């Protein structure tokens, strides 16, 4: 069975007055039908641009410079624009981080949910309204008949994000793309919204690509993970395997620098330095300047993403030493510098 969505060697460039910013540098990923996939990275890692590129929603002047997006075995990048858009928007729905700017402020929320059923699924106005009310109920909005007529500003952040999820689901997609869907929400509301996403995914068999900077959120939601750094995927694999035994120093350090609510440690591990400037292309691994385990070879050649057993992959030359990393940092006093 071929995967629902396959992205091959995607490159996104942003032409700027003083040069070209190479924001996404050869990302490949797959999502099977009904599968939840997480895309993790910091700001500037290219995770959001990757997601937006899939739907043709790149902000100006960013553009896909090369790569293939294969949906149901068909390379949509080769199709004419109209046909490409029809296929992509028919198969995927998107949930954005900020629900207030994602919704139309002067249109009732119910009408916004009913739009896709009318236009894409060819429903009558009455059918589309019934579908919208049903979706509102499914995402846990109390009293959906009344809330159908509400404007976005009349609802709380959590309720608005539920509306956005209902809109994403309204065209009967097979894959939901969610860009930091709960980052703007309080933790108690975040738990509710994630619960809604999870139960819908199970009930409807809709796939999910979740972009987040929060490893814990991704670990609770997804089955597979892609860790991105400086526009590249640096590690991927089944989520439990990656989180319990990371094979890339960036994922390793990230896991240890985030405090655990259940187990405070004496001192958090710090990652020195800051992410690289993507305008410049330095030789070697882009994480090497911040890496705790970098050797000379890491600064000379750019490590390719190599496949490992167990459906995993890493872009680290020294991944075979990963088992020793924990012992190495135990006695290490890191140089703390931002």
């Amino acid at each position, binding site marked *: 069975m071929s995967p629902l969505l396959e992205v091959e060697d995607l490159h996104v460039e942003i032409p700027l007055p003083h040069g070209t910013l190479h924001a996404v540098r050869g990302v490949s990923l797959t999502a099977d039908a009904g599968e939840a996939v997480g895309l993790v990275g910091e700001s500037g890692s290219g995770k959001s641009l990757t997601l937006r590129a899939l739907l043709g929603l790149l902000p100006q002047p960013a553009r896909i410079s090369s790569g293939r997006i294969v949906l149901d075995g068909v390379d949509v990048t080769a199709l004419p624009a109209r046909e490409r858009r029809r296929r992509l928007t028919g198969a995927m729905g998107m949930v954005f981080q900020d629900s207030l700017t994602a919704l139309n402020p002067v249109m009732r929320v119910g009408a916004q949910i009913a739009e896709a059923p009318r236009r894409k699924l060819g429903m009558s106005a009455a059918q589309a309204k019934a579908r919208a009310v049903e979706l509102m109920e499914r995402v846990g909005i109390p009293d959906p008949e009344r809330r159908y007529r509400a404007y976005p500003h009349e609802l709380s952040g959590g309720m608005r994000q539920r509306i956005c999820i209902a809109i994403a689901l309204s065209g009967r997609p097979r894959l939901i793309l969610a860009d930091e869907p709960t980052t703007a929400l309080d933790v108690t509301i975040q*738990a*509710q919204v994630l619960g809604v996403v*999870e139960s819908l995914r199970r009930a409807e068999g809709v796939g999910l690509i979740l972009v987040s900077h929060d490893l*814990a959120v991704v*670990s609770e939601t997804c089955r597979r993970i892609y860790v991105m750094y400086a526009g590249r995927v640096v590690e991927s694999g089944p989520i439990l395997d990656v*989180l319990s035994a990371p094979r890339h120093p960036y994922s390793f350090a990230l896991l240890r620098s*985030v405090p655990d609510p259940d187990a405070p440690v004496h001192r958090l591990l*710090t990652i020195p330095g800051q992410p690289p400037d993507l305008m410049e292309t330095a030789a070697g691994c882009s994480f090497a300047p911040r890496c705790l385990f970098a050797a000379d070879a890491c600064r000379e050649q750019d490590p390719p993403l190599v496949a490992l057993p167990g459906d995993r992959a890493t872009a680290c030359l020294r991944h075979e030493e990963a088992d020793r990393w924990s012992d190495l940092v135990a006695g290490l006093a890191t140089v703390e510098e931002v």
Partner: protein
Amino acid sequence: MSEVLAVEGLVQQFEGRYGLADRIARRPRPALRAVDGVDLVLREGETLGLVGESGCGKSTLSRCVVGLYRPTAGVVRLAGEPIAGTPTRAQRRFVQMVFQDPYSSLNPRMTVGQILGELLRYHRIVPRDQVAKRSRELLDLVGLPYRALGQTPRQFSGGQRQRIGIARALALEPKVLIADEPVSALDVSVQANIINLLLDLKQTLGLSMIFVSHNIAVVRQVSDRTAVMYRGRIIETGPTEQVFLEPSHPYTRLLLGSVPRLVTHVAAGGAATAIPAEPVPPAALPTATAEVGGCRYRDRCPVALPACATEPGLRLISDDGEEGHLAACQHVPG
């Protein structure tokens, strides 16, 4: 340990929109009590974590403490002395604040040297001829290179700007540092740097700190004591480990239970996910404007009783000799 800062019965009320039509109709002025009767004690050398969700009043409370707001009622005492009206220069030196957003809290037109120098001169921290030397010492403290003195904030990354914000707060040699969401605007890989820096500085300079955050994991990591706020009140407070291991207030339990956890092994049930289908009942909106009467958490609370119609005060659960573990809930035996 002696008390360095105390808050008693603090109320901070904001007025809502009141237009001409409201005035003609003689409607009452709408008021929002962001902080509604808070008592707090900070002891020397300790870190108090203040947690709560957006709108609970935690930032308003910290702004009252540094004197950015003049409280509607109640007192803030610094080293036993109440702030009367505008804080005195000595009082302003006593408490300093590190702000959430290092992009908007630094003057973009001033160099780091000017930002620090202005404070050092105005407050006469050091003689004028030693301002430059003291500025360099401050940069050493927060781990920035000396060349930063000639640069403006925009030339720095978020983490470095937060270091500048910390250096600015430390320039006045405060006894108390209020950190209002100091790492929320930073990338995850940089957060640990700032958390460790704050803890080191607290240790070496003997500071007391109030650490305000919505990030529960960070608060557990840094705080000796934790206070949980809900709709303008502290509803549970105590030694951090006790609050986290034996949360007593139903809201604290919900809050701690909602924090996403890193799942690194398959749970006993065989499922990789820890999220139940619908973990918590849909919330009613916390509207601080509505005078609900009784316990503020009553309308969301799964274990509300008729007795919750009267607002419970903080009740002692266990006593560790200092202040103990308290919660404002009818279920705590009074």
